């Protein structure tokens, strides 16, 4: 009748794991070793590209080439780390804000922006880089992540799934159901919450009264950990360990990364309605890129090379988005089912007919 009731091993540490401080120096009494230099340099390159990508996308919105863009400016470390700790056979489940993470897995950034450009829903082949489509309905991707992981496990594969979620998303029923399924099935899933303190305008204090989001693991028997989400070293360490543990059959893990959304929810949002500029300013000092740069102290030529690489990506994105694709109306009917139903064939024919007549009128 009595369960063992011991929750100690499930509780997160008292404060978020930090390895490199906001001043760019290693913290004194770090609980774990720093990732090696190569890992960190790889991360720096990704971070610089990521930031450039965010800026480029924002510019494209202003130019009307993108309908909308949910920027991850300020959160790049979380997304870079989420992608970097995975192996090729692993899966990533991103939200709408995780374009950078998808790109980190190899998705072409132009394809990653297809949805926001308005050409089609998902622009990439989810199987190519094992990146699920951007999920818009909050937390709904989390049970999918568990299913992918469980299927792999049933076949004896060593796949690990990284499932991303926002702080707001943790309030949805699907968050709860996914974590519970993962725990009961011991599915190899790492749930990474990017706690950027807001769900659109709603601050964390209105979202939850929990001691931390990482504490949400306890109720499922899933270990929770908190990490400084602007410290890529800490992220690589904590997420890397969680992935390794899941791969070894240790089951799911929940990681809360403390970070901040530096820009509005999307370009359509007016953040001044719900938060003070000063609050945002305070986070500039914690910028994940500055921090890593201070720590690694790369030479000028090294930095120039990284920026050049980032610029190439930006150019690729600019070119890609400036190219007007004329979506094919036939696509509307081609993918609803493996074979269009008679009803869809009828509607497709009708539409083609309408278009021809309109074309003739022009």
């Amino acid at each position: 009748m009595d369960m063992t009731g011991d929750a100690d091993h499930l509780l997160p540490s008292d404060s978020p794991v930090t390895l490199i401080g906001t001043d760019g120096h290693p913290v004194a009494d770090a609980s774990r070793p720093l990732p090696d230099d190569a890992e960190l340099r790889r991360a720096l390159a990704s971070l610089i590209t990521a930031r450039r990508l965010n800026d480029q996308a924002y510019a494209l919105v202003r130019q009307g080439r993108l309908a909308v863009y949910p920027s991850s400016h300020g959160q790049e470390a979380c997304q870079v780390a989420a992608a970097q700790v995975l192996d090729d056979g692993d899966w990533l489940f991103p939200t709408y804000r995780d374009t950078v993470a998808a790109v980190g897995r190899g998705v072409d950034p132009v394809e990653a922006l297809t949805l926001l450009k308005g050409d089609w829903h998902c622009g990439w082949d989810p199987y190519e880089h094992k990146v699920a489509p951007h999920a818009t309905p909050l937390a709904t991707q989390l049970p999918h992540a568990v299913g992918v992981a469980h299927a792999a496990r049933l076949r004896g594969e060593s796949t690990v799934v990284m499932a991303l979620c926002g702080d707001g998303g943790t309030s949805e029923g699907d968050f709860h159901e996914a974590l519970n399924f993962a725990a009961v099935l011991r599915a190899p899933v790492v749930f990474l919450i990017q706690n950027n303190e807001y769900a659109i305008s709603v601050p964390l204090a209105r979202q939850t009264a929990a001691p931390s989001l990482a504490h949400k693991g306890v109720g499922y028997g899933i270990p929770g950990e908190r990490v400084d989400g602007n410290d890529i070293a800490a992220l690589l360490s904590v997420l890397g360990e969680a992935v390794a543990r899941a791969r070894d059959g240790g089951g799911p893990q929940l990681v809360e990364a403390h970070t901040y959304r530096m820009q509005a929810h999307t370009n359509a949002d007016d953040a001044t309605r719900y938060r003070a500029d000063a609050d945002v300013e305070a986070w500039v000092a914690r910028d994940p890129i500055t921090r890593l740069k201070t720590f690694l102290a790369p030479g000028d030529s090294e930095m120039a090379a990284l920026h050049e690489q980032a610029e190439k990506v930006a150019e690729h994105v600019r070119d890609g988005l400036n190219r007007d694709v004329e979506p094919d109306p036939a696509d509307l009917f081609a993918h609803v089912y493996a074979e269009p139903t008679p009803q869809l064939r009828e509607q497709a024919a009708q539409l083609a007919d309408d278009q021809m007549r309109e074309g003739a009128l022009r």
Partner: protein
Amino acid sequence: MTHEKLTMAQALNRALRDAMTEDPSVVVFGEDVGPLGGVFRITDGLTADFGEDRCFDTPLAESGIVGVAVGMAMNGMRPVVEMQFDAFAYPAFEQIVSHVAKMRNRTRGRVALPMVIRIPYAGGIGGVEHHCDSSEAYYAHTPGLHVVTPSTPGDAYSMLREAIASPDPVVFLEPKKLYWSKEEVELGRSSAAIGRAVIRREGTDATIIAYGPSVPVALEAAEVADREGRSLQVVDVRSIVPFDDETICAAVRSTGRAVVVAEAAGFASVASEIVARVTERCFHSLAAPIRRVAGLDIPYPPPKLEHLYLPSVDRILDAVDDLQWENS
């Protein structure tokens, strides 16, 4: 009665304000409806003016929002909740179908649920996936719900006032592409639009039956047809449940021909119902089968293709052309 020129968004905001002022049991809550005023600003300023107890942000959980509203309605309040977009009401589906719609009946009328579920719905604004669903059929098929949708700022104001005052739960569908449409609005409570369709334009050759986002398109089609010498009557359904058989059937009988226009995928839809019930009642007045101009039976398309999905003036006029005029 005072009048003011308002957009539909402003008219809805005004309706909430006026209802909250009149009745302290009216409370507004949902995602981002507080300081932000909602992503469409429908609740703009309500927290500032009425306080946090009357208008507040909730955790991000639609089933919770609707479920908590059920409890508050059981206990003396009149909650008005906002679902941020159409597809984001689906997590609340069980609460809506199994409780909101059934509580009064379950308890033989002892527990009423005077609550309003506001849902910005339908497309036409270039929104991405999940932001453009026309979900009225799901609610209209569920006995126990009132389902209404205004097409003008004036109706938006008066119907929302009426919905809030209703002793029954109302699914209040706001055509988001019309939020910025503007007209002179009569303020104050007076209307009895719930249950009543309205003739938006007189006409003698055929009747266009539309609602919500499709009404302006139908009116435009009638305008064009008029120039081509055909006189189209336009009926705005407004109230899907209860449905105004009287007005709508009288209209169709007067012309003998009809086209139903609606954005939702056509299969098993409200448009199907209108065709079926009007045909059942007016069969021998009809010179031709009633035609439907509906959304395609596909998931709502990406922005660049939505114009092909939406009922257009051309598609409406084509359908009118198909009404077997050779028989007349």
